[in-house]
């Protein structure tokens, strides 16, 4: 019985394994290629009185010597162990998957071509004229679907034909294309014939142009210095892989011409994408989209705000009840002024977390977020940043820490530091919870205006920050482009989206509850007068610093809340909750005893004690304060520089106080 060895060659996902398993069945064994961790699969089958050995070559994009897989493949073919190479290509995307065939052309081992995935290409409405391709290539070509064993008869026939007739790829038209390449003809005249057995001079010439390490090594050992220098000289003026790759694609198009007919869609951008990618309207469209998104996120927030109010209203009845059953006053005060009050705030805030997460999750899922990052790319460039910096910024809307960690994709240290420095200006999830809530409380429906102002302040802040830090961190170097695939718009999967939003809201609820309760508790105790008639410590300190904090438009209570907000923004709520609770604060406890202060609502107390300009100042102060200590740590971890981490932190603290002062004075002009 005669024998032949077949090698399967194809790109990953071309269906090699399916074909291999179907052909060999149980007659296969798996090992490793010598000295490599790449899997080696061999097997055997017989057909029509001939025994075939089958080797599954590792999948790789092409035959360049860039990886172990490619080197193994090339060595195996060069060793002459294979009588025939079976090249696989994906018939549903021939123009791309025939690249392996183009790269194979010039290797003097007989071959045949299997166009796999016939089922998929049929579904796409593609008609592939196998005969025409066969005539152009000069080797057997078949169209099959490897997972359908009934279709294998043509495969065996093509295999037999290739083995018996030793069919070789017709490379003349490919060589014609190569000849137009800079340097091809010159190198062809220099390279000695048969430099590596099994590879034609054309193939070696192309690989020389592509600077293939293995071929270059061979050339070095086989040629004298002068010839080598001449090759290097020619290569310097050639464009290498870009041109040879282009030639291969041109050849593929030529092979497929008149052989593949499909209903080609004409290329047009959708209406919405024309708007987003427009030079003039792109930015306004994006800014409007974000604004609209923020405004919309208020809608689902309002009902939850109502729940928060209801919780707050529980204070009086619970306080009364506890007093009636003889619960110690201290505990009553903690339960009402710390626990219930905190939860009232937390619930009022959660609505906004839910709303913002839902609206922006939705924008991302339908594909709008990708357009937003596209539009901002050029702005990134003006700030000295790469287009991919936009991702850490987007993530920072959720959590600055995530944004800082996200800068890991930026290789350039300076750009990374600048990206983090700017990402701090993006109000994080906690800010988007605290700020809209406080704005609604103080300004009612004008909260929307405050949010818009914050958004524009953010853009201005980022621009100024980039100007301040940029020149130390990024150099005006050539900035290469970015390619973005705009994903198709699709309808949101509501179930998955809601699960995501609820999950986020729940996480935030747990985290925020811990922080607010803890901070509120600590500040409540500090403001609790244990010796009747004496002022608690915090009050004394507060009174002392107030003349200074007033400069920034902040009452001492609000200033302390601002300081705490650098630990975590939600903490500010805890401070307010503790310090403004029950009206006149040093007497809070005694007022509470009489029941009067407990009944009064904190929201009303706040409105009575904090003027609108002060509220505005406070809102800007905490929004643009450093995000939180965890973000600080994350920043250090990415930046690896105490100096820069400290610089950014101090810059933000000072910046927030300046913004607070400006907001206060603008507020004074308005009210």
């Amino acid at each position, binding site marked *: 019985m005669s024998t032949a060895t077949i090698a399967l060659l194809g790109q990953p996902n071309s269906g090699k394994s399916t074909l291999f398993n179907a052909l060999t069945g149980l007659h296969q064994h798996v090992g490793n290629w010598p000295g490599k961790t790449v899997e080696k699969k061999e097997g055997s089958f017989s057909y029509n009185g001939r025994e075939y050995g089958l080797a599954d070559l590792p999948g790789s994009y092409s035959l360049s010597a860039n990886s172990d897989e490619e080197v193994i493949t090339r060595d195996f073919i060069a060793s002459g162990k294979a009588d025939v190479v079976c090249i696989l290509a994906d018939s549903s995307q021939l123009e791309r998957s025939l690249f392996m065939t183009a790269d194979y052309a010039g290797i003097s081992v007989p071959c045949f071509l299997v166009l796999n995935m016939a089922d998929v290409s049929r579904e796409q409405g593609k008609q592939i004229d196998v005969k025409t391709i066969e005539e152009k290539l000069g080797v057997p070509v078949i169209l099959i679907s490897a997972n359908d064993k009934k279709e294998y008869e043509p495969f065996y026939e093509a295999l037999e034909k290739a083995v018996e007739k030793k069919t070789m790829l017709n490379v003349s038209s490919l060589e014609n294309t190569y000849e137009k390449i800079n340097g091809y003809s010159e190198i062809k005249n220099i390279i000695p014939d048969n430099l590596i057995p099994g590879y034609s001079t054309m193939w070696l010439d192309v690989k020389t142009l592509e600077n293939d390490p293995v071929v270059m090594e061979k050339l070095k050992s086989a040629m004298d210095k002068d010839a080598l220098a001449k090759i290097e000289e020619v290569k310097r003026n050639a464009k290498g892989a870009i041109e040879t790759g282009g030639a291969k694609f041109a050849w593929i198009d030529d092979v497929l011409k008149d052989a593949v007919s499909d209903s080609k869609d004409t290329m047009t951008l959708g209406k919405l994408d024309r708007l987003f*990618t427009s030079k003039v309207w792109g930015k306004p469209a994006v800014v409007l989209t974000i604004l609209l998104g923020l405004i919309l996120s208020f809608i689902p927030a309002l009902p939850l705000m109502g729940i928060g109010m209801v919780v707050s209203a529980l204070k009086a009845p619970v306080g009364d009840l506890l007093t009636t059953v003889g619960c110690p006053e201290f505990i009553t005060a903690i339960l009402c002024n710390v626990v219930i009050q905190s939860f009232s705030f937390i619930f009022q805030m959660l609505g906004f977390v839910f709303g913002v997460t839902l609206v922006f999750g939705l924008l991302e899922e339908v594909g709008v977020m990708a357009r937003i990052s596209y539009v901002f790319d050029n702005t990134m460039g003006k700030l000295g940043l790469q287009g991919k910096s936009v991702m850490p910024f987007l993530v920072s809307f959720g959590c600055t820490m995530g944004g800082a960690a*996200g800068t890991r994709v930026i290789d350039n240290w300076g750009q990374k530091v600048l990206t983090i420095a700017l990402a701090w200006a993006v109000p994080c999830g906690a800010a988007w919870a605290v700020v809209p809530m406080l704005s609604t409380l103080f300004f009612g429906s004008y909260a929307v205006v405050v949010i818009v102002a914050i958004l524009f302040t953010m853009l201005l802040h980022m621009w100024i920050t980039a100007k301040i830090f940029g020149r130390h961190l990024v150099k005006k170097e050539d900035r290469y482009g970015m390619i973005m695939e705009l994903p198709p718009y699709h309808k949101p999967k509501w179930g998955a989206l809601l699960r995501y939003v609820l999950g986020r809201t729940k996480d935030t609820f747990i985290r925020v509850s811990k922080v607010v309760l803890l901070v509120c508790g600590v500040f409540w105790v500090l403001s609790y007068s244990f010796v009747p008639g004496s002022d608690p410590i915090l009050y004394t300190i507060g009174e002392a610093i107030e003349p200074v904090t007033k400069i920034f438009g902040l009452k001492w209570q609000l200033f302390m809340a601002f300081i705490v907000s650098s630990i975590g923004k939600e903490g500010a709520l805890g401070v307010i909750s503790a310090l403004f609770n029950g009206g006149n604060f040093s007497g809070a406890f005694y007022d509470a005893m009489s029941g009067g202060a407990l009944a009064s609502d904190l929201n009303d107390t706040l409105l009575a004690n904090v003027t609108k300009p002060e509220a505005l100042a406070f809102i800007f102060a905490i929004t643009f304060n450093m995000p939180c200590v965890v973000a600080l740590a994350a920043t250090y971890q990415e930046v690896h520089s105490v100096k820069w981490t400290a610089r950014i932190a101090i810059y933000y603290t000072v910046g927030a106080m300046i913004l607070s002062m400006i907001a206060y004075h603008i507020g004074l002009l308005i009210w």
Partner: protein
Amino acid sequence: MEGLIKLLKDGHARTIEMLALELDTTPADIKRKLEFLENTGIIKRVSFEVSSCGGNCGSCGGCEHSGDEKATCKSCMPSGEVLNMGEMWEVVGL
């Protein structure tokens, strides 16, 4: 191919569709060329998967230190995956 390289060099961001329009070809042609350039090392796919938040998430309450490299901080990164953002490549080796 040279036309594509020229466009990639000029520092502007472009979508696959825009490249196809400007070069008077199909998105499929652009995609296969991008695949080639990626394999040649001229462009690089940007991966936004942040494999872990570096153990900094003590207070964020969502990080799973399950030893899984891919575990992400639930309350920091949008549930570990970025939804429908499309692919992004940057030019590295020109």
